[in-house]
């Protein structure tokens, strides 16, 4: 297999509150000999909120982000489900509405850029599962995750709306997604089947509707725990923030203690590929995740 090369759109969280996401992603890429070129010019995708305020501005900024991947001529990979959907929705709009694209390009021309629609955008999860391939990952496992029952939490913005997502997620069924389950299998962990795995974590209303956010986060975490999960894993750092940081608040609201390590998808892969404790970055978790490293090698 020739070397895989991608333009990496890190998103904001990987550069700020979840440094462990970036370090584990780069560690996985190094282990698998995947070349990731970080798009340092990129700006925030608007996180599904900017478009509520100003949809045109959101499209212009995301078109600019895509332009930089186009300059490299590489498929853009994302580390965050919400970045993925915002960039993919921008691409969808511009690729199918020539008048609108002209309006956006008129703005981009002022900074010497032009959106062409020449590259694909996919989440790193699907770069690993569909491009690199599960069998190839399996062959590289140094620390089988057989000590863990792992609950996959897919995150909305990788699986819905399916018509858009099917262009980059290998045709995932939004009511029965399987990619993360298969990845856990390939790493020799035990995937946990539970009803909340394709549900919403509530992150996007955390400020204005904390009761809703805590209810959704708490329900999903407890569902995983009640199905004997030792770890939850998610490809989305926004789900991760809610699931990791809000365990105390969500548990208080639910009237139960909640304590479960929540890993980013690349952290789980990094663990199985034998990356270092530093690279995996388990110290950056609010819930107790440090123990996972020792337990993996027990």
């Amino acid at each position, binding site marked *: 297999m020739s070397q895989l090369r991608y333009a990496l759109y890190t998103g904001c969280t990987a550069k700020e509150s979840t440094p462990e996401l970036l370090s584990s992603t780069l560690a996985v890429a190094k282990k698998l000999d995947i070349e990731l070129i970080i798009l340092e010019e990129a700006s925030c995708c608007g996180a599904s909120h900017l478009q509520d305020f100003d949809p045109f501005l959101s499209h212009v900024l995301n078109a600019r982000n895509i332009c930089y991947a186009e300059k490299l001529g590489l498929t853009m990979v994302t580390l965050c489900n919400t970045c993925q959907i915002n960039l993919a929705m921008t691409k969808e709009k511009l690729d199918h509405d020539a008048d609108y694209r002209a309006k956006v390009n008129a703005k981009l021309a*002022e*900074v010497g850029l032009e959106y062409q629609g020449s590259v694909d955008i996919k989440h790193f999860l699907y770069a690993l599962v569909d491009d690199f391939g599960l069998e190839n990952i399996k062959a590289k496992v140094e620390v089988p995750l057989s000590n863990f029952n792992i609950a996959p939490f897919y995150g909305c913005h990788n699986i*819905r*709306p399916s018509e858009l997502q099917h262009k980059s997620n290998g045709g995932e069924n939004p009511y*029965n997604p399987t990619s993360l389950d298969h990845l856990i299998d390939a790493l020799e962990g035990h995937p946990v089947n539970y009803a909340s795995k394709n549900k919403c974590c509530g992150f996007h209303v955390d400020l204005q509707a904390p009761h809703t*956010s805590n209810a959704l986060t708490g329900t999903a975490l407890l569902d995983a725990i009640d199905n004997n999960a030792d770890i939850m894993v998610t490809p989305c750092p926004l789900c991760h923030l809610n699931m990791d940081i809000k365990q105390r608040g969500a548990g208080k609201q639910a009237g139960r203690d909640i304590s479960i390590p929540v890993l980013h998808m690349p952290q789980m892969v990094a663990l199985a590929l034998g990356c270092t404790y530093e690279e995996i970055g388990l110290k950056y978790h609010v819930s107790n995740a440090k123990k996972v490293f020792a337990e993996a090698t027990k």
Partner: protein
Amino acid sequence: MSNTKKITIKAFRFNAETDYLPYYKSYEMEVGKDELVLDLLNRIKWEHDGSFSYRRSCRHGICGACGIKVNGKPVLSCKENAFDMIDLFGDELIFEPQSKKRAIKDMIIDKGDFWAKHAAVKPFVDAVIDEHPTHETKMSQEEVENILDADYCIQCGNCHYACPSLEVNEEYFGPAAFVAAYRFTADPRDNSGKERLEMTSKIGPGVWDCVKCFECAEACPKDINPIEKITKLHNLQFEQNVAQSNVATRHAEGFVRSIKKHGFLDEADIVKYSEGPIGVLKHMGDAIAMMKAGKIHITDQIPFMGNMPKSKNLDEIKKLVKISQTNKL
């Protein structure tokens, strides 16, 4: 490929008048390639148990009566081919009502909350109509297109009962009511747009409580994409100066503030800016936990000391914000 498949249907059974708890009953049947989910519901009733209850009427995908969930997927029974469901979920299909907690009998639910919310947004053109007009009043092509496909809603309730926000917040209007609110607000003949925008901008019942899960887009049998209309309502609030400054509107607008300055979102600043100086205090517990874990740093909000990353070519971003921003709070 075989023209029939043998499957097991596990159907939710409950009679609110006699049962304490619901239960599931299995029915085995040979399904033909042209059969619809509605045909399978009929066959349970006709071939197995005459007391099995569900709503049905037009069989043409227009009355909106026969919405149920198959393995968690909201479907309009008369539009959904059974083989497609078997392709998605295998040979065990689980039939459940749209909302289990609202079940009256088997697939039949009390849809009262749906109708009350739908009615509350004034789902009609509010206008004084001249009963004897002397000339035709025409809508421009642009005005027609602006209504989008919001007019195709058949009030089946699939999106409403797929919405997780509504499931935990009873006062939330829900996606179908928002589609109706948008459809009539976008109608040039209508005079109640502002009232609807005010109604749907309130935190709690309004659009700001949308969790952005896209369950509604996935659930709609008419491919209406309700969340697109929810976003339109958000936008109209700003365009028509209905938006009040509150935690949700500042959160949406605050992204511009960060992006102009850093390219990236300043995660701590957006919470401070959205919540205001008093509101932010309730996040102190989480902030301290995040500091302990090294996720955020005490110096982050001090100029020149923080770790805030900056995008390369930030000047481009600043310029694009300046020339592209269309809305204001």
